[in-house]
C-alpha cells in the first residue's frame, strides 16, 4: 500500500520516496525541499481541517492535503 504525506499522523515524521505530480506543482514541491530522501515532520493541521503544516529542511511549510497526497513517503 502506498503511503502519502497526507496519511502521516500528526506529530510524526516520514521520509519522502517519490513525488507523483507533474509540471509546476512537481517543480514547486521539489524546489521547496521535498525531495527524494528528505525527512518531513507533520506538525499540525489548520483549524478548519486543511491545510497541513509540516517541518522540512528546518523551516515550516504549509500545503493542502490534496497536495500532500501526491508525495509518497515511508
Amino acid at each position, binding site marked *: 500500500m502506498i503511503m502519502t504525506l497526507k496519511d502521516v499522523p500528526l506529530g510524526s515524521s516520514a521520509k519522502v520516496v*517519490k*513525488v507523483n505530480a507533474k*509540471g*509546476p*506543482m*512537481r*517543480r*514547486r*514541491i*521539489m*524546489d*521547496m*525541499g521535498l*525531495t*527524494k*530522501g*528528505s525527512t518531513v515532520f507533520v*506538525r*499540525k493541521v*489548520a*483549524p*478548519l*481541517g*486543511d*491545510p497541513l*503544516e509540516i517541518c522540512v*529542511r*528546518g*523551516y*515550516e*511549510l*504549509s*500545503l*493542502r492535503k490534496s*497536495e500532500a497526497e501526491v508525495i509518497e513517503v515511508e
Partner: protein
Amino acid sequence: MSITVALAGNPNSGKTTLFNRLTGSSQKVGNWPGVTIDRKEGEIKELGATVVDLPGIYSLSPYSPEEIVSRDYLLYDDPDVVVNIVDATNMERNLYLTTQILDMGIPTVIALNMMDEVEKQGSKIDIEELSRILGCKVVGISALKGDGMDELIETLKSVPEKPKPIRLAKASENTIGKISKVLEGDVSEDKLRWFAVKVLEKDELAIERIGDLWNDVTGFIEELEEADDDESDSIVASERYDAIGEIVSKVLVSNKVPGELTVSDKIDKIVTSKWLGLPIFAGVMFVVYYISITTIGGWGTDWVNDVFFAEMVIPGVESYLESIDVAPLLVAFVVDGLLAGVGAVLGFLPQMAVLFLLLVILEDTGYMARIAFIMDRVFRRFGLSGKSFIPLLIGTGCGVPGIMASRTIESERDRKITAMTTTFVPCSAKLPIIALIAGAWFDKSALVALASYFIGILAVLISGIILKKWPSLTGTPSEFIMELPPYRTPGPVAVVKSALEKVWSFVKKAGTFIMLACGIIWFLSAFDWSLTLVDDINDSILANLGNAVTWIFVPLGWGTEWQFTVGTITGLLAKENVIGTFGVLFGYADIAETGEDIWGIISSMVTPVAGFSFLVFNLLCAPCFAAIGAMRRELGSWKATGAAVLYQTMLAYAVSMIIYQIGVLAIYGTFGLWTVISFITVAVMAYILISKDPFGQYRKRATEVAI
C-alpha cells in the same frame, strides 16, 4: 563606474529591508514588461551603482512570472554582480536558489542576513569556510539592524570573480558535461552550465531555447535516469539539496535542539491552534478594521472630507479665484469638477494609510501567512485561496484599499480574480444606498442589509468559480504550497516606508484618472447641449443621456424612471452620490444621508421588487472611479480593467434582472419575454458554473482579452 547589481533572494529573507538600506530614498518603482509585478530600482550612492531588486523567489523555475522575470533578467540583461541574500536562520532552503544563481556564472556576493538572530540563537556560522566552498565572497549582515552594510558595499567596490558552481553527484556531472558539449556554440560560454543543468532538469523554457539540440541530449538524460532509477528533475533537486546539506554541516554549528519548539512554534501553538485559531483571527481582523476604517482612519477621512476640503480648501480656492476675477464658469469647473475629484482621491488617503500600515505590520510579522493558512479551506472550494480573504474584508470598509490589498497574493491569477471581485462586497459608501432602499420600501428592515452582504459574498464566490474557467486566467493552477515564516518584529522605518509607498503609488496611478472622470461628470451635469450652464440638473446633458439610455434598465424594473438611471451613473463617481443625485433630481438639494426625504416619492415610482433590483445592480455593478483606478493598477492594462468592469456590470445586470423578473412572477404573476430571458440566463450561469470548460469554444477570443 556605473555597475548594475541584481538583488536576488527568497521571500521573507529580508531582501526589501536590505534594498532599502542600500538605496535609501533613491528608489523608483516601475513594472516588469508584460506582467503586473513591481520592478524596484535604486542607487547605491557610495558606489554610483544601480540596484535592481528582483522579485522574491525560491527557485528559477520556468513557471511563475516572478521566476521567469528573474531568470530572464539574469540571463539576458547582463548585470555586473548578483547580491544573493540568504537567510542565515534558514540556510538549507535559501541556498537552493544560490546553487542555481551560481550556475549562471555571474559574479556573485552572498549577503548572509539575520546574523543577529543566529547570534541570539547561540549558533555559529563559519563565514570564511562558506566563502571558500562557494567560491565567492560571503558577508554576514543584519539588514534590520544595519550591521555589515559597510562591509557589503566595500565588497562591491571591486567586481568579484566569477563563482564556482556547486557540483552535483558524479554521474549527474558526467551527464551535464555531455549535454554541455552539445550545447557549446549555441549558448554563450558563461551560461553553458546553467542551460545544461536546466536541460537536464527538463526545464521547458531551456528546452525551447535549445530547439533541435534537445534531440541530441535526450539519450544522455535517459541513461542517467535509468542508472539512478529516478526522474532527472528529481535527481537534480535531491542532489542540489544533498550538496547543500553537506556544506551546511561544515559551516554551521547549530545551537538548536532538534524537536525543541522555537518561539515562533510556541506562538503558533496558540495562534493556529484548533480552538483559539479562529477567534484570534476574528479578533485581529476586527482590530484592523476598527482602527483603519472606523476610528483613526475614519476620523482622518472624515476630517479630510468635512474639514480640510469642505471648510478649508474649497472655500479657500473659491475665494482666491473669485478675488482674482476668474470667470465664474472656470471657478465652478475647478471647484465642483476638479477639486471634487481631488477630494475624492484624498478623502481615501487617511483610511488607506492606516490600513496599509496595519497590513504591512501583519505581513512583516508573519501573521499574514497564518491568515491564509487558516482561511484557505473556505476559499479553496471556490477556486481561490486563503489570501483572498483580506482584500474582501477590507473591501467592506472601502474597495480601494481592498483591491490594493490583493497585492499580497502571490499567484497572479488569484490576485487578479480577487482584485476584480473585491468590490462585490458592499463598501461603506454603499451603505446609504442600502438604507435608502430599506427605508423606502422595506420598512427599514435590517434584512435588506443582510441580504446585500450575502449577495455580495455570493457574487465573489461564484465569480471565483466562473473566472477561473476563463482561458487567460486558467494558466497556473491554484496551489497553496506556502512558507510559514518565523514571526519577526519588523523595523518601524521599513514598515512606515512600505505603507507610504503603497499609498503614493495609488495616488499617482488612480488619482489622475479619477480627477479626469470627475471633471467630465461635472461638465455633463452642469451644461446642456448648447453648452450653456443649466440651473436645473434635469436639463443637463447628463439628464438627457440618462433619459436616452434608461430603457436599457427596463427589464430590471426601474428603467422606466430615468432618475434611477442617472443616479446609477453618478454612482460611478462615488457610490454615495446616488443619494445626493436623487436629492438634486427630486428637488431636495440638502437630502438626508439615508434619503429619508424622498422615500415616499421613489416608493411610489416603482415596486419594491424593482427597488431591490436597483439596489443589487448598484451593489454589484462597476465600482466607483477610484476603485476602477485601483483595479487598473492591479490588472495592469486598461483593456483588462475594461473587461473586468464589463464582467461586473454584466453580472450585476443579469442578477438584477433575474431578481426582478422572477420576483414579479412570484409576487404578481407577471410573465413576459423578459421572464423567459431570465430563466435562460439562470440556465446559462448554471452551465458555466458546473461545466468544466464552458469557454472552450471561445478560447481564442478569450485569450485576446487576456486579463
